[in-house]
């Protein structure tokens, strides 16, 4: 393993000042965002993390195999054989469900679409030093706004889709912006406010879908009326595959976020705030404005993710759990992608494959798709604690800076 190039950065005078906390935060954020690393070095730890997560997931499948434990007493060899067979069946189903056929690939891309968008939302926050756990709530509000536009506005197809997505951006953005504003004005920690707003949004959706504004006429079910054709996201590869134009929107969002964060002044200020809020203040930036703005953008991206789950999900009648666990998957995904838009895109594809495959694993092998949540948690641990991965694989010690992303309650 080569020496990390980060240790001597000529254009960064702060590096020489020793173990000051600001430099540490800087280095941490650099590492989290992958600015310092050559691309292959950036892949070692994430790759090994995914591998480790798969191994631990396999062990969990074995340990929770009830049928095998029943015969463990009489015939341990057969029991362990059955456990291993279980893992093989599960992982084969996972792989085939993700890549095994055109339909599987379509499912992977379809699942990846909202993941990439929500992952970008979390990544934009990370780069500004904010931990947005609220993608779930922002998806709810965005998706609901899109449904409202879909049901109550009458427009030709392209305009209708555009307007619905704009509504999703605004609604999700406002929901995220509340958190940014609270943080800027009162110092309320974004982790708590976003989680609480997730619950509030979930209850709001639950209520809204029971009102006549959303329900089909004469229906008592807590779900929306079917969305009109004009607002549905058209499929790309024909009606029989679910992957739709949302994928194009997600790819566009990846390039937009890349441009925003690395090519625009605003993005520079976002990242500067993430590196060091106090330095940004002295440079004349309004941290209050930046925190609110970045949470608006983050919420807007999550809102689009929500819109793809309402406008793009057959049979186009929206139920109260359309956000699923995407908001939480997005956190793991942003960390795995090192908060870089391109990294998030690849991580989104991987997670899309894991989840699409996980669904077929649940159907074929009876292993609950919750296993994917465990794997995501493990991936986060291993990425946040690269030393752990290095210790397990006996790699040379390279960078040992702590991964401190957030600071206390008041920061």
């Amino acid at each position, binding site marked *: 393993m080569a020496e990390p190039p980060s240790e001597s950065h000529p254009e960064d005078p702060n590096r020489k000042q020793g173990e000051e906390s600001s430099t540490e935060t800087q280095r941490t954020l650099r590492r989290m965002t992958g600015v310092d690393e050559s691309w292959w070095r950036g892949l070692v730890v994430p790759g090994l993390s995914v591998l480790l997560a798969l191994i631990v997931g396999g062990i969990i499948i074995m340990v929770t195999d009830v049928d095998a434990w029943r015969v463990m007493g009489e015939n341990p060899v057969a029991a362990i054989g059955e456990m291993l067979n279980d893992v093989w069946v599960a992982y084969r189903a996972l792989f085939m469900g993700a890549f095994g056929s055109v339909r599987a690939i379509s499912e992977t891309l379809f699942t990846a679409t909202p993941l990439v968008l929500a992952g970008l939302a979390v990544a934009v926050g990370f780069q500004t030093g904010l931990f947005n756990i609220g993608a779930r709530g922002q998806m709810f509000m965005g998706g609901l706004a899109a449904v409202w536009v879909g049901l109550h506005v009458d427009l030709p197809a392209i305009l209708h889709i555009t307007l619905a997505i704009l509504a999703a951006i605004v609604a999700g953005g406002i929901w995220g912006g509340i958190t940014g504003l609270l943080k800027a004005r009162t110092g309320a920690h974004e*982790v*708590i406010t976003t989680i*609480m707003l997730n619950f509030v949004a979930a209850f709001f959706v639950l209520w809204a879908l029971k009102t006549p504004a959303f329900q089909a006429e004469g229906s008592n079910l807590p779900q929306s009326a079917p969305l009109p054709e004009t607002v549905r996201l058209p499929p790309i590869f024909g009606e029989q595959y679910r992957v739709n134009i949302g994928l194009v929107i997600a790819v566009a969002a990846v390039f937009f976020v890349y441009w925003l964060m690395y090519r625009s002044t605003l993005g520079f200020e976002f990242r500067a705030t993430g590196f060091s809020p106090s330095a940004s203040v002295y440079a004349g930036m309004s941290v209050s404005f930046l925190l609110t703005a970045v949470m608006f953008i983050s919420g807007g991206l999550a809102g689009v993710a929500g819109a793809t789950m309402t406008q793009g999900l057959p049979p186009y009648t929206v139920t109260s759990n359309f956000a699923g666990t995407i908001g939480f998957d997005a956190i793991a995904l942003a960390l795995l992608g090192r908060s870089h838009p391109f990294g998030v895109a690849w991580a989104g594809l991987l997670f899309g494959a894991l989840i699409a495959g996980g669904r077929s694993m649940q159907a074929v092998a009876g292993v609950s798709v*919750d296993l994917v949540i465990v794997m995501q948690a*493990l991936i986060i641990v291993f990425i946040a604690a690269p030393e752990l991965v290095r210790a397990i694989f006996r790699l040379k010690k390279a960078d040992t800076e702590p991964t401190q992303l957030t*600071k*206390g309650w*008041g920061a």
Partner: protein
Amino acid sequence: MTAVIDREETLEHKNRLTPEERRSVGVGVALIAMGLFVFFFLGLAVQAGEQSTFNLSLQTDRFQDLSWVVDARSFNIAIGLIILGLGVWRLTRRALDWTNIALALGFALFSFAFLAWAAAGSQFSLVGMLRSTVILAVVVVIGALTGLMCERVGVINIGIEGQLLASAFAGVVLSSAFGTWAGLAGALTVGGLLGWLLAWLTIKFRVDQIIAGVVINFLALGLTSLMSARILADVQSLNAPERIPAWRIPLLSDIPVIGPMFFDHTFFVYGMFVLVVVIHFGLFYTRWGLRSRSVGEHPKAADTAGINVYWVRYRNVILGGMIAGFGGAFLGLAQVARFEEDMTGGIGFIGLAAMIFGKWLPFGALGAGLVFGFARSVQQKVAILNIGIPSEFLLMVPYIVTIIVVAGVVGRTRPPAADGQPYIKQ
């Protein structure tokens, strides 16, 4: 934070008011608005002569048929005036730092007025509501104590939710298989293990404390849901723990209102009160507490004085995890008495907010927990009264209260100075 300080300094310069005084004014205005609302909408709007009956005894009580009947209209007009008075008092005597007490009183009176309004012309079990306030406060208070144990030594614990959930699962499964005490022991062990995991990740690998906490939540949610789907759905006898019975305290439990509120519970509820007292005494009157607090305030100085910072942090975070395990056991073995996926539903985070609300003090945590318990209890009872507010909005209330609390309605709170900071031994 910088922005907040700047803003406050400029305002202070303009108005010559200290931040406490400005808060006092803000609370005063809010109380006056609240008082007017009660006076007009909950008082004058009620038909004259409508009576609200508050029942003061439960069917199991020794003394039956106690009740308190009020005339809803005049009761609420009186309460509206009292709240108005509180507001004026805050405006005129703003130098006196009794703002939080006024605020708490105002909210309590408001709740009573609201209940009298909602129950006008019918009955309402007041003692039932107060009793469930205490029961619903337990997990919140225990969550707050967990957070407090960790944060007093400088480790932020966002993973309380996961610790509660995982220990509830362990408690339910072990209790179903081997009996109540095994369940309790298992819950404490799992809570302690997850505490150790948090300490290990944040101290040994210096993982960001918030990320480590989130990981614990994910792991707990994923593993318990997975095992619940793969094992509990298959072997349902593992999800049938014996509900731990209440221990009625003789004589004391016969006192009307107070008895059912405090002296007719499972040992978890008594345990919560004991924990509050023990942790308060421990933190402020023992060597353990002095060492813990010094590690949370200034780890470098503590290290120089010969205190093993890492060891103190490990010990307290593990103890905190075991306290969460106690709360999880209450959830799984007494309150719900079975395991359901994601049965915690964000209560760990509400506990965290209660810790902040209670200013990192055990008795503060107790008070804050009771406030949250009261909010939840009112919400449940009002949902039964069915007064036209959709239940979803009532369900939002505890979460919105949490946001308001962390947004600093309680005034300036000061976390331990080294909270959230990893310590690197030189």
